[in-house]
C-alpha cells in the first residue's frame, strides 16, 4: 500500500510486483470504442482496399486485377481534375474560413464584446454558426434557388441595384461554377472556426491584452502578437479538421451541381460515388476512395505532427 501511494505521489508508474494494475482496468473502458473503430473503420477500409484490387460490378464474383485500377487512375484525367477541384475546396473550406474566422473571432471577442456586451456576441456567434447546423441538403437546395440563372435571388438583386451586367449563370457556367460552390462552402464552414477560436480566446489571460493596451498596442498588433500565438493549437486543429472536410466534401456538390457542368465541379468523393453506383465499376470506385483515404490520413498525420512540434517548441 505504501508503495502504491509513493508511486502515485512521484508519478513513476511501474508494473513490477503489483496485483491490480490500473492500466489493465482502464483498458476495459476502451474496448467498446476499439471494437466500434474496428467494425466501422478498419474492417470496411481493409475490405475496400481489397476490392480495389479487383474488377467487380458489385454482384457476382470479383476478379483479381492486381494494380490495374491504380494504373488506370494515374492516366484518368477526370480523376486528376477532381483532385484539382479538391484543392480549390481546401481553399474554400479550410484556408478562407480559418483566416476570416480568426479575424471575426478576435473582433467579436476583443471589440464587439467590450462595446456591445456578451449577449450581442452570443447572437452573432450563433448566426455565423447557423449554416453548420443546417442539413447540407437543405442549404444546397436554398442556394441553388438563390444562384438560379433566370429567377434566382442573386441575379434579381443585381438587376434591382442596376448591376445587370454582373448577372451570371452561377452554377451552370463551367468557368464560374466551381467558384460559386466555393462561395457556398465558405458560408457553410465559417461558423466552425469562429466558435473554436472564440472558445480558445476564453483561456487567454486578459492581463496580456491590458498590458499591451497600456503599452500603446493597437487592435491589429494585439491580434498579431497575442491572439495568434495564444490560440495556435486551435488553429492547427481547425486547419486539419477543415482540410479533411474539404477533401471529402460530397453533399454540397451532389445537391448543387452533381459535379457539373461538364465535370467542372467534380470532386473525388462524388467521382467515387458515381463510379460505384452509376457505372457499377466497384473495383475502380474502391481504388479512388482508397487513394482519397490514404491522402486524408497522411494530411492528418502531418497536421498532428506539426501541432506536436509547435507545442514542444513552445514548451521548451
Amino acid at each position, binding site marked *: 500500500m505504501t508503495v502504491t501511494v509513493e508511486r502515485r505521489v512521484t508519478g513513476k508508474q511501474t508494473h513490477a510486483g503489483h496485483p*491490480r*494494475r490500473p492500466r*489493465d*482496468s482502464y*483498458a*476495459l473502458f476502451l*474496448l467498446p470504442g*476499439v*471494437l466500434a473503430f*474496428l*467494425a466501422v473503420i478498419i*474492417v470496411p477500409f481493409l475490405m475496400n482496399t481489397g476490392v480495389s484490387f479487383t474488377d467487380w*460490378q*458489385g*454482384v*457476382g464474383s470479383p476478379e483479381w486485377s492486381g494494380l490495374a485500377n491504380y494504373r488506370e487512375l494515374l492516366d484518368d484525367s477526370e480523376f486528376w481534375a477532381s483532385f484539382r477541384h479538391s484543392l480549390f475546396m481546401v481553399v474554400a473550406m479550410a484556408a478562407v474560413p480559418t483566416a476570416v474566422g480568426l479575424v471575426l473571432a478576435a473582433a467579436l471577442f476583443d471589440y464587439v464584446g467590450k462595446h456591445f456586451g456578451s449577449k450581442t456576441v452570443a447572437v452573432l456567434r450563433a448566426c455565423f454558426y447557423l449554416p453548420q447546423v443546417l442539413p447540407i441538403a437543405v442549404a444546397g437546395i436554398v442556394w441553388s434557388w438563390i444562384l438560379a*440563372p*433566370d429567377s434566382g435571388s442573386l441575379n434579381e438583386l443585381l438587376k434591382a441595384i442596376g448591376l445587370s451586367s454582373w448577372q451570371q*449563370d452561377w*452554377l*451552370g*457556367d*463551367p468557368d464560374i*461554377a466551381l467558384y460559386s460552390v466555393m462561395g457556398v462552402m465558405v458560408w457553410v464552414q465559417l461558423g466552425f472556426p469562429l466558435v473554436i477560436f472564440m472558445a480558445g480566446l476564453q483561456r487567454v489571460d486578459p492581463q496580456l491584452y491590458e498590458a499591451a493596451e497600456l503599452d500603446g498596442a493597437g487592435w491589429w498588433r494585439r491580434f498579431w502578437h497575442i491572439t495568434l500565438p495564444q490560440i495556435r493549437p486551435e488553429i492547427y486543429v481547425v486547419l486539419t479538421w477543415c482540410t479533411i472536410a474539404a477533401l471529402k466534401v460530397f453533399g454540397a456538390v451532389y445537391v448543387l*451541381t*452533381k*459535379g*457539373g*457542368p*461538364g*465535370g467542372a465541379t467534380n470532386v473525388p468523393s462524388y467521382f467515387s460515388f*458515381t*463510379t460505384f*453506383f*452509376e*457505372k*457499377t*465499376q466497384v473495383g475502380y470506385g474502391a481504388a479512388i476512395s482508397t487513394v482519397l483515404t490514404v491522402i486524408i490520413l497522411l494530411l492528418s498525420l502531418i497536421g498532428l505532427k506539426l501541432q506536436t512540434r509547435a507545442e514542444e517548441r513552445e514548451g521548451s
Partner: protein
Amino acid sequence: MLTARRRVVATAVILAGSLLLTSCGDSDSGSSGDGKTLKLWHYEAPNSAMGLAWNEAIKEFKAKHPGVKVEFEEKGFEQIQKTAPMVLNSSDAPDVMEYNKGNATAGLLSKQGLLTDLSAEATKRGWDKKLSASVRTTSVYDANGVMGSGKWYGVPNYAEYTMVFYNKELFAKYKIPEPKTFDELTAAMDTFVKNKVTPLANGGAEYIAHQYLYQLALSKADRAWVDSYELYKGKTDFHDPAWTYAADTFADWVKKGYIGKTSSNVKAEETGVSFIQGKAPILFSGSWWYGRFVNEAKFDWGTFLWPESNLTLGSGGNLWVVPKGAKNKELAYDFIDITMSEKIQNLLGNKGGVPVAADASAITDPKSKTLIDNFNTLSERDGLAFYPDWPVPGFYDVLVSETQKLITGSEQPDGYLDALQEAYDKGVPQQ
C-alpha cells in the same frame, strides 16, 4: 477466476465474433415461404397512375387470397437502384419488386443469377401474348444480360414514350399553328425567339437535354441503327450522319436561342415546372409527365409526336421482377397476373398511364385516350427506340456531362461525339 486482462481478452473475442457473424451474415435464402405472406416493394408515387393501379391490385390480390398478408414497402427509385444487388443477395429480398429495365440494371442482375426466370409463367399465364414486341424487348435478357432475346426476367405492365407537350395558349398568343412538320416546328421556335421567348424547356443537369439530342438522331435513324446502338447488333459510329446531325443541330439550336444557354445546370423537375408555370411553350419529354400536367397545368395544352420521325424514345415501363431468393414465388406470380388484368390495366389507362393490355373502349378520359392512341400509333410502327443511356453502365453521367458542355459551348459537336464514342466503346460488352 479470470484476471482483468483475461476478462478483457475474453470479452473482445466474444464481441468481435458476434460482429463478424453479423457482418458476414448468412445470405442463404433457400428456406421456402409459408404461402401466407407476400412481400412487395415498389417505388411509384401513391397519386401517380401506376401507384393508384398497384394499390388497387393489392386490394384485388387480398380479395383473391384470403388469409394472405401483403407486406408492402414503398421505396424510392434511387434507393432500389443503388441497393438492389445487395438486397437481392441477402435473405431480406422481397417476393416481388419493381425494378428498372435495361442492360445495366435488370440485365446485370439476371446475368448474375439474382432474378427468377419467368419464361414458363409468361407462357402459362399468357403475358407473352399481351405485350407487343417492342414492349417485350426489356422483359427478356440473354446469358450476357443483354435485352431483346433470351429468358423472361421481368414483366412491364405499362409503357412510356416521349412526345412534344405544347402550350396552346402561348401558341395562340403568337398566332402559331400546331406544327405538323419539322419545318413548322422550327418556324414556331423562330417566332418565339423573335418574341424573346425561349421555346424549348430544357434541363442540362439531368436527362432532358440528351433526350432532345437522341430524338434528333432518331429522326435520321432506323430500327437497324437502334439495334446496333442498344442491342450491339452492329458497330456504333458516333460520327455517322444521324449522330452528327443531332449534335450539330443541338449546338445550332443553342446558338439560335431555341435552347437556353443558362439551362446547363437545370434539373428535370425544374424543367417540368417551367412548362407548368407557362414560362416555356414547348417541352419534349416522356409520358411520365402526363398525369401531372393534367392535374397541375392551368392552361390549355396538347401533345404531338416528334414530327417526321418514325422512332421516338420509349419502352415498356419498369419491370416486376421476382428475386431468386423470393420465398413465396407463386404468390408473386399471382400478383403480377392481377396487375396484367383488364380491370387494373383500364384503371391505369384512365389515370393517365399507358397500359399495355387495356380494353381501348374502357378508356373514357379524352386526354388519356389521346395518350394511348399515340402510343398505339408508335407501337404499330415499331417506333419505341429505348433511351440513349441504356447501352453502357454509367453512360447516363457521360451524356449529362458532355451535353452540358455542348450547351455551355465549352465543347464543339465533333469533340462531343468523340467523348461519347470513347465512353461507349469502353463500356460496351465484349461478345
